[in-house]
């Protein structure tokens, strides 16, 4: 990791050069980013130019109800890749896990960054935000909700990193004891809250604005793919805007296709060749993992193309079905090893109860019908010729 406290005024190009990154490698990165984000090759020089001259954007990273897996994923590259350097070269002014400062000094750093860059800093959030009891998760005595609303008010854009911030994730899973919600839901629920009203006295130039109109980029995944973050940052540095997003706020360039659509095992699915267990012949031959509960068909992410661990592999390549970790409610989908075509409930038990209830109802109805029949027979009066002649 580079030192976050120094070189705040250096441009990205200067930071990269000081890290020994050649221009050739830098341009390669720009080309790779352009291709990953489905931009035309003509954009490569523009990306390079923009990145070289970009001042390091101030980034405030807030961690709420999370496991630090997202930070681990984004920072624990085996080698110092350009992606990680781009990530390092942002001015990460506040990050619980990574910053050296603690206690009051840490909070001061956040407030200072907010004051200096009001309206211009990027707010990265990982973890969901509890709403049931503000005491469930606090930082420096401030509830997550207050800290989020206060910091979001001055952000240029919010990036929800990881499934917890994006969709609520594991804390939001049934029965959601802390009343945890995603960044998007929190803004929907509390977006109109006046920031002045949430202990923001220390923010001098607080305009007291609402946060409901802030652009939100969701980067789900448990954890998310590091290159998606650098891709979004590169886009922001190059164009000053956020990339094209889908209906869930995910960058289309990375979340446009499902794992299933880009899976190298897809031909086996199409042919109907499946691994039945983790150690059968099908598993050894690398057949489709659908029957073992793969959620690839309903999961939109870039794992199958960008892969993990410096492009080594992705879960399906390692022989394990996709958990669908980048989709909302992936924890409540009825079990990781249950195939998508299997109901999430216990059908045999339901069937037994339904059958028992129906048997009782059926016997009752049968008895009613029988008595109706015998009554009809009893009350039956023979039709006489007079009846037929009646007009």
């Amino acid at each position, binding site marked *: 990791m580079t030192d976050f406290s120094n070189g705040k005024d250096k441009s990205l190009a200067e930071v990269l050069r000081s890290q020994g990154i050649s221009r050739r490698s830098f341009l390669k990165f720009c080309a790779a980013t352009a291709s990953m984000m489905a931009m035309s090759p003509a954009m490569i020089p523009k990306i390079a130019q923009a990145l070289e001259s970009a001042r390091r954007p101030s980034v405030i990273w807030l961690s709420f109800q999370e496991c630090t897996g997202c930070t681990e994923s984004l920072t624990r590259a085996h080698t110092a890749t350009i992606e990680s350097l781009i990530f390092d070269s942002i001015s990460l002014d506040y990050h619980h896990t990574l910053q050296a400062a603690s206690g009051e000094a840490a909070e001061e750093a956040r407030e200072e960054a907010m004051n200096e860059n009001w309206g211009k800093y990027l707010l990265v959030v990982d973890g969901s935000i509890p709403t049931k009891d503000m005491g469930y998760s606090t930082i420096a005595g401030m509830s997550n909700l207050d800290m989020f609303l206060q910091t979001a008010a001055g952000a240029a854009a919010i990036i929800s990193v990881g499934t917890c911030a994006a*969709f609520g994730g594991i804390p939001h899973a049934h029965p959601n004891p802390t009343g945890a919600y995603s960044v998007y839901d929190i803004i929907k629920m509390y977006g109109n809250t006046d920031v002045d009203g949430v202990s923001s006295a220390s923010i001098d130039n607080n305009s007291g604005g609402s946060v409901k109109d802030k652009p939100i980029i969701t980067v789900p995944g448990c954890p998310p793919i590091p290159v998606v973050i650098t891709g979004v940052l590169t886009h922001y540095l190059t164009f000053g805007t956020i990339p094209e997003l889908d209906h*869930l706020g995910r960058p289309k360039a990375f979340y446009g296709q*499902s794992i*299933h*659509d880009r899976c190298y095992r897809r031909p086996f*699915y*199409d*042919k*109907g060749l*499946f691994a039945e267990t983790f150690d059968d012949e099908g598993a050894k031959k690398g057949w489709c993992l*659908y*029957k073992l509960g793969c959620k690839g*068909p*309903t999961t*939109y992410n870039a794992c199958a193309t960008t892969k993990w661990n410096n492009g080594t592999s992705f879960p399906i390549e390692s022989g394990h079905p996709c958990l669908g970790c980048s*989709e*909302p*409610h*992936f924890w*409540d*989908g*009825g079990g990781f090893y249950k*195939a*998508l*075509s*299997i*109901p*999430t*409930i216990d*059908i*045999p038990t*339901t*069937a037994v*109860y*339904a*059958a028992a*209830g*129906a*048997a009782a*109802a*059926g*016997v009752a*109805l*049968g*008895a009613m*019908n*029988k008595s109706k*029949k015998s009554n009809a027979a009893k009350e039956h009066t023979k039709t006489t010729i007079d009846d037929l002649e009646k007009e």
Partner: protein
Amino acid sequence: MSEIEFLNWVRGPAFEIAMTIFIAGIIIRFLEIFLLGRKTNLAEAKGSEMTGGLHTIVSRSIPDSNTFKRSTFKIVSGYIFHLGLLITIFFFAPHILLFKDIFGFGWPSLPTPVVDAFAVVSIITLIAVLIHRLQDRVLKFLSSTEDYLVWLLTILPLITGYIAFHRIGMTAPSLLAIHILSVELLLIAFPFSKLMHAFTLVLARWYNGAISGYRGVQS
């Protein structure tokens, strides 16, 4: 409700509701039929009800030549889409997983392209059947709203399943959820509509055969 929430709902609570109605409905319908009973036949039996009944269950599957000549389209198209439904429902690998979950055992699946082809043939045949129903004046006159509803409930899972497999149009979770929902609608309507013939045809055929069998005549 997000699309994954929708999918989780159709795979969970909605499936439970549909399955309860389906199972309870069928049991109630059967009990109603059985418990109503039949009048004791006072005539002396001249043959076996069982032999005649069982014979008819099988023999009625083959149309006699005159009927076939008279209603060739109805019989051929009927056979095609029923066979297509049978293969699509019971021999597609993801469907077998569902049956395995319910019954505790499964059976080998057919290659996916084969099932896909049968699904397409079934869809085309069902459309042809509807056109025939609308063009045949007598058939049209005899058709009730229920007939059209049953047709719709049968073709919907086929179409939505085909679209979900080929992932056309919407996102995958929505497509899968819509497919499962269409099956749930079919399950709910099943016991209370003509769809019940899938079970009652056995009783009806047996009864027809049993009458002849009792009288000792050919069934």
